[in-house]
């Protein structure tokens, strides 16, 4: 029988086969070969693409190279969203591998944050964890951790060490049994058709009457559009880690098992493909 821990592993070891192509406009000394990589769904683009940078630096004049950024079908890809979220949001239901265009010029200042070094990603990652723990445990767990524990979380993600990461992360996933769950569920709902970056609200895993909240309850509360109307055709897919959990899935379970390493449950609401 499959165990819940297998879910954690599956989530962690989720990979997206990606083909990096250099933007046509970049000036090259010779033709740039595409570069193929398996990207971890739970990591960040700029954290795992040092090899890509090295690969393309070989063919462009390094003096011209500015900060590397990525684009998919005209959309600049935000590095501070987990890779899996970017894929589910923009490229799910497309043919694999995922073709990402690499740019070294014309950084879209309006759309993207700069990412000069890994420490920026670390800061972003840790702040997400802290924000999530503020919601889950009033920051009690994360504040009780030592500096080296924080480092262990980050190093776990950076080096793709599942055991190392979870040895620490399990503490962030604990809760008093009598409460039946976290204080609030840290989640973010992404949509393609809106300027709003994402939806984030305070939502408890259990109703005041003691009912267990489900994914459906959450959507009904914060994003009812995503739910299928009665009798009508399904218009939206609710995707987490590339899968569509049933709406009756308990939210607390989702938060414990399908959260990204940053402790947030990233939910993508995308239109059902028209075909």
């Amino acid at each position, binding site marked *: *029988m*499959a*165990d*819940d*821990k*297998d*879910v*954690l592993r*599956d*989530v962690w070891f*989720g*990979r*997206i*086969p990606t083909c990096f192509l250099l933007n046509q406009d970049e000036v090259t000394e010779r033709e740039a070969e595409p570069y*193929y*990589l*398996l*990207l*971890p769904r739970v*990591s960040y683009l700029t954290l*795992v*693409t040092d*090899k890509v940078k090295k690969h393309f630096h070989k063919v462009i004049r390094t003096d011209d190279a500015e900060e590397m950024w990525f684009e998919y079908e005209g959309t600049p890809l935000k590095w501070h969203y987990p890779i899996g979220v970017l894929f589910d949001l923009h490229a799910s239901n497309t043919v*694999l*591998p995922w073709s990402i265009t690499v740019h070294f010029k014309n950084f879209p200042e309006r759309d993207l944050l700069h990412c000069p070094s890994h420490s920026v990603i670390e800061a972003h990652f840790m702040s997400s964890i802290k924000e999530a723990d503020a919601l889950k445990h009033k920051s009690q767990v994360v504040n009780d951790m030592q500096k080296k524990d924080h480092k262990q979380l980050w*190093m776990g993600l*950076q*080096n*793709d*060490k599942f*055991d*190392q990461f*979870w*040895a620490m992360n*399990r503490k962030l996933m604990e809760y008093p*049994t*009598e409460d039946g769950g976290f204080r609030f569920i840290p989640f973010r709902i992404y949509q393609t058709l809106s300027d709003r970056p994402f939806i984030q609200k305070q939502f408890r895993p259990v109703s005041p*009457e*003691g009912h267990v909240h489900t994914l459906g309850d959450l959507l009904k509360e914060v994003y009812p559009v995503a739910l299928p109307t009665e009798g009508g055709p399904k218009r939206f897919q609710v995707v987490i*880690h*590339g*899968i*569509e*959990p*049933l709406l*009756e*899935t*308990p939210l607390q*379970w989702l938060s414990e*098992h*399908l959260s990204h390493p940053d402790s947030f449950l990233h939910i993508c609401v995308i239109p059902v493909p028209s075909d």
Partner: protein
Amino acid sequence: MPISLLWAVDVYGRVYSLSTGGGLWEQCRDAHMEFKRVTAAQQCCWGIACDNNIYLNLHASDLPVRYKEETYENQRWNPVDSFSDRLLPSDRWQWSDVTGLQHHPLDGFLLPSDSWEWEGDWHVDENFEGEPTEKVGWTYAIDFPAYYTKDKKWNSCVRRRRWLRYRRYRSMDTWAKIPPQQTTLPDPFSDISCGGWEINEEPRGRLSLWAVSLQGKVWFREGIYHLNPEGSVWEEVSLPGEVIQISCGPGDLVWAVLWEGQLLVREGVSRDCPKGSSWVTVDSPSPDVGATHVAVGVNVVWALTKDNKVWFRRGINSHNPCGSGWINMVGEMIMINVGLNDQVLAISSEDRAVYFRQGVTSSELSGKTWRAITVPRDGDRSHSSASASSLQSAGIYFCGEVRAQSAVSDVESERGSTDGAAGLVTSSSPESLVDAPTDQPVETPKPHIPKVTSDSFISELVSDREPAKTSREETPPAVLEEEPLALEEDLKDPCAGVAIPPQDPQWCNVDLEEAQIQQTGVVLDSVDTCSLSSVATYTLAMEDPYGADERPLWAWVSGGGCNVDSHSQLNWFNSMNASSLVQSVQSMSLSVSPAQTAAWRRQIFEQLSERTKREMDNFRHYEQAIEQSVWVKKGTMQWWRDWKPYKWIDVHFALEQFSGAEGNKDGILFIYYNFYEEKKYLHAFVNDVTILVPVLNDSKHSFAIYTPERTKQRWPIRLSAATELEMQDWLALLSVSCCDSRGIQGPPSKQAAWSITCKGDIFVSEPSPSLEAMPYPTPCDQMFWRQVGGHLRIVECNSVGIVWGIGYDHTAWVHTGGYGGGFFQGLASSTDNIYTQSDSKSVYIYENQRWNPVTGYTNRGLPTDRYMWSDSSGLHECTKTNMKPPSPQWTWMSDWSVDYSVSGGADRDGWQYAADFPASYHGHKTLKDFVRRRRWARKCKLTTTGPWQEVPPISLSDVTILPCAAQISVDVVPLWAISNKGDVLCRLGVSTLTPAGSSWLHVGTDQSFKSISIGAASQVWAIAKDGSAFYRGSVSAESPAGDSWYHIPSPAKQKLKQVSVGRTSVYTVDENGNLWYRQGVTPSYPQGSSWEHISNNVRKVSVGPLDQVWIIADKVQGSHGLSCGTVCHRLGVQPMEPKGQSWDYGIGGGWDHITVRGNCMEPPRIRLPSLGGLASQSSFPVSTEANGNAVGC
């Protein structure tokens, strides 16, 4: 904690019980009559029924209550008749008791009451002091009374034999009337309270039962214990006044309330005198208002006064049963009761709900808050679904002819009273019986429960109320969904309930006095005396269809059998009020489909594996974005250094992990230390570590790391972390690391060997196929052991994966199939299948005294004497104050108390005497005794988690499971056990799907047993408490309990203590550490012929399904020291040579138990090169091809 019951009686006299594991008051359907009061112990519940008789409800158990009657047949030899029943005039009776003073003919034994039945006929006891007599039980002597032997000698002039017959208590789980005494009691009982089981556990199941009669007299029931559950006689206890209510705690507290409102405290209650000696008066908590009710526990006293105020008595302890003062507590209650663990239950005067006192701990006995127990009753549910009946009742409001309608319904009630579904109807007759007796002593406001006696009156009443009602109940609850709404409405309206003070002034006309008189007639059989009065009350019930039924009104509650404490997780408070019935039904339907198999979870598993296929399967050749690298964890610890002088030194510790050659992880651990200012290090490869053993004591949080080399040396790497948490973190991490490096994950396999250390830690090892190979088995110091959460004393398994354990407190546990628990959290542990496990044991210290001519025995010893407070050896000082629990995991659960059950016996105060320290002690003082000692015990408790689930309720001392051969699949697996009282039990319904089985089958024996083992061919061997062996004949699948015992004499002058039976081999261990092999066992003669000595210094033996022999041995020599409690493997065991040749030494010391009965893996056949050639080619033609394929892949 096992599931136990809270008992309560509602105002209608119906008895309900609420399980600590459940969320429903279950009505005691068996009660044919109404009860006034109940008082519960864990094994039974006593009650006063409305016929004023006392009833006992003994909880059914798989262990029967069997009372052994015995009598002796005496004969004398004379030259004419040889031995005959012709005795001399001065002799004893021909049939007598053991002393010969009482005449006990066989037909003089009668069953004490209807609750007993004979188990069989009289038979002769053929067993004499552990030896079969072989002479139909006769034992011989020169004369009466004398020393008897089993052999007839030339001078044997008399002989006697013992006859046995068992009687069995049969009235289990039913209310059985306690037989009235010959001298009838002057007046009926009005109150009853049981307790006292903690003051003396001998004889087993002893209880004190106190009762109060209507005239205010107090009675004590003598002679209640396990084998005599009904007790024998009522004895009156003299009193300084008239008592109205009494309460007896589990310990020595007994308090009573006087009619005038003061309280009485019983003094002198002790082990020898559970009845106590005298009364002391304590004033009522409040000077103006008398006390009405008292409830006592082990260390607490709670009381109520007439104004329903609640009081807590300060300063109660074992030296001062009277306490020092009263504290007024929050709440207004009409009845209060103290259950086990001093937990408090009360019934509120306001809403008659049962309240549980939350937060009662041993340090805060007064608790924190009252919390209402709001679970529904089982009748409620059937009622809410019975929409038909509510429709019918709704109809009545509109019919106008209320009387006529109700009369018709009443006829129905007579027919349907046995029909449980008609919830409303059955409620009618108890209603007529509800009366003051329940309330009398507590002075509850009587008008709460109206009593109606005239039907004309009631019709008048109903017609009066009808218009008002109609408007409220306008919409009949025709649809089921609407019912909860109506129900809520009812609850909001205080007038709705029958027992709520009626606002209608007419109700005050109800004549309570008359009702009481009437009641006595009605009580016995309400159906027979179904007079007008019951018609009337029935109408009342109809008038208010929900009031009475939806909200229980409680009269009495007893928590004496309810084992909860402040840590217990109870589902008693989940539903906010009775109106959330629907919700509780919902939650029940949820539990029907467990979360494991829920659709949403399946969907996630399925989609994730689809995702893997879609996104990864075709792209495995892509490069990984993140390269794997080395991961290092460092810390500081202390290390017990390897050279003299041995001491703890500070070291740096590091674990480096990396990916091994085949993708599995590997690692090295380093210990960096300073040696004469020079930095040095010691290292160990993670894949070389064979076991990590936590060694907790009160000063160090340490653990030991063994490798095969270190096991040989008997000298592990010992490390100590700064805190317990840090140690557990390291242990968990190292353990995961070791398992990773060996590719071991998930639950233990069915073949696994299990072992237990003397600390109760559980280890499991996966056997390699060559573990039992000949001639070169895997050395047993190379076995890798990993820890499993939990705490046990014994573990037994078999090869289909059924694993049972027994805790130090004798609780039986079954393995859930999970792994981890304890400090193995997160990834090293399965998420489900892990449960809380607790265990308890006693810590002992000795009080030593020496006699001197002036002052007698004092605690002043000679200068050369041992400490006056010491451990058993006398070498270490152990006082009550400095003694700590064995490790930080253990906490005290009681105070120090004298232990009377020491070997050698003890006097009334627990003293044992001897000529000098150290010597053998005896239980009575002689002239030659100059020293004495007594043992003090204190219980401590450990709570942990592990993949174990309790198998309640019988405590065990040994267990064995049939070892199955590899190929054979069995549906039902035989499992035998010995209860901690020595009964032999056979578990029914054990299978791989239900490893816990269903119930126990008791196997009758004439004496107590201590060890048992079943072999692969269902051959059952057992060891009796007297050290002799028994073989059970004819055990088979058809007859799982077999038919009879064959007595097997033990080896000369040795008392056996443990047995283990494999495929054919039978091994036993005796009390002097000798290991014996049973010679001459054949299928046709399974008892064998004689014992052959194999080895000494053996503590325990486990024989597996391959007849492999493993033991726990003492005194194993290592290069660095001697170890006790070492796992050893018998080498050279073969089918033709089952005794083997020599021992191979494995992990130890400190090991206490091992079982290899899961390992039925036949070792690979080793083919010597000289035997190769043709034979091997012809028998394995495929093997080369398979190899070729493997290479090609």
